């Protein structure tokens, strides 16, 4: 017996719109709960750091935000490439839905980094490799958003920004290493594959918040892609038949 599954059923905006709407609560609620748990562990369970005292606690938000800001760019470029190569409209919509969230995380990462840097290094900002490349990453997000916003035809906007995202993702490692050779002051990463130098409660808090951030990203992107679908398909019959547009 052959089981016929239509793998591409949900790659059409029409069907994905309903699916996304049903999925959002399954990501949004766990995200809220895990945020609360992670912050509780971070503030009340994790011990005070021997060297950095209380100020280190900002890293429970800083580290997940930095990780996500980089991952989201790659995922965004991936979706953009899919949209460019296979001309799947939904992929391009996903790419444009991811961009503002990625920019937000890059900004949070810079902001919390500045708050951490003031007590630790005595300066809000230093021209260190990782700070600088995070700043450049924010610029890349802003360029992507600006290019998409300034082209009126959505198809051209999708394809042009997709090309930009691909060029950007080829450039990211080059930028990263050139900035690193240029100057390095940032502390090395404390999480290594051969055991870590961190207390267990600190790890628990950080990973809980990381998972919460992932779930938040998925929920927010699904909600945003629903709005984009409605906007782009506003002249179609199925959108006019929807209960929420009546």
């Amino acid at each position, binding site marked *: 017996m052959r089981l016929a599954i239509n793998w591409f059923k949900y790659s059409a905006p029409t069907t994905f719109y309903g699916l996304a709407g049903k999925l959002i609560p399954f990501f949004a609620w766990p995200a809220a709960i895990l945020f609360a748990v992670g912050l509780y562990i971070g503030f009340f369970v994790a011990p005070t750091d021997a060297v950095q005292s209380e100020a280190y606690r900002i890293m429970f938000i800083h580290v997940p935000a930095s990780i996500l800001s980089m991952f989201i760019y790659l995922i965004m470029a991936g979706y953009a490439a899919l949209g460019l190569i296979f001309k799947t409209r939904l992929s391009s919509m996903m790419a444009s839905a991811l961009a503002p969230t990625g920019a937000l995380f890059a900004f949070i990462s810079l902001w919390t980094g500045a708050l951490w840097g003031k007590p630790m290094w005595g300066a809000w900002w230093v021209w260190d490799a990782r700070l600088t490349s995070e700043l*450049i990453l924010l*610029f*890349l997000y*802003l*360029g992507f958003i*600006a*290019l998409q916003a*300034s*082209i009126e035809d959505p198809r*051209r906007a999708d*394809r*042009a920004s997709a*090309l*930009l995202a691909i*060029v*950007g993702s*080829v*450039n990211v490692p*080059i*930028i990263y290493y*050139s*900035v690193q*050779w*240029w100057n390095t002051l940032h502390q090395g990463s404390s999480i290594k594959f051969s055991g870590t130098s961190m207390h267990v409660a600190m790890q628990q808090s950080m990973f809980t918040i990381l998972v919460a951030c992932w779930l938040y990203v998925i929920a927010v992107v699904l909600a945003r892609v629903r709005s984009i679908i409605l906007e782009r398909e506003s002249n179609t019959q199925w959108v006019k038949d929807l209960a929420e547009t009546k």
Partner: protein
Amino acid sequence: MNKLSLFGLLGLVIRRDLLLAMRRRADVLTTLVFFVMVVSLFPLGVGPEPDMLRKMAAGVLWVAALLASMLSLPRMFSADYLDGTLEQMMLAPQSLTMMVLGKIIAHWMLSGLPLVLIAPVLGLQFDMSVQALWVLMLALLLGTPVLSMIGAIGAALTLGLRGGGVLVSLLVLPLCIPVLIFGAGAVEAVNSGMDAISNLSLLGAFLLFALVFTPFVAAQALKISME
């Protein structure tokens, strides 16, 4: 009509663009004057101490070169786009990638090469040593073509858009940072008594990498913008 070889086509496009530019010399001179002016403004802003000027010379010259090259980018395709030449180029059976490469080279000869040639004179204003001046020229010679190549992608993507000039800088400047770092780094290395060869090698690597990929990507970007 006899068949054109790839390099014949390249030469034809370069010659045509240079000829057109020579008919409107003001455009070429604007970039150069802008570069000279920006560089000359820095000592007025930060003060005339020779020690400080010597230290910041390479960075100032590189940033000014970067901005000057941004200034001339929107012109790379826009005239041909407006009078329909670009459309004919895309319809032609010859390789669009090669034509784009020709336009990039012409753009560099008009906006990059003059900066390379005038840079030593401006370097003297900053009290740079002779050895540093040579390295600066060499670094600019390797780096400015990369700026034109990366810029071509931005210029192609923003073709015909409102406010394209500012937008193209927003897109291209972050991508040019490695060139800036190693270009200024080469001069920095000489000043601190080290060898500039590693920085120059990396700039050369960027040039080759960009030479292989950017004309193709810019051609794709033109196709997206023109359809």
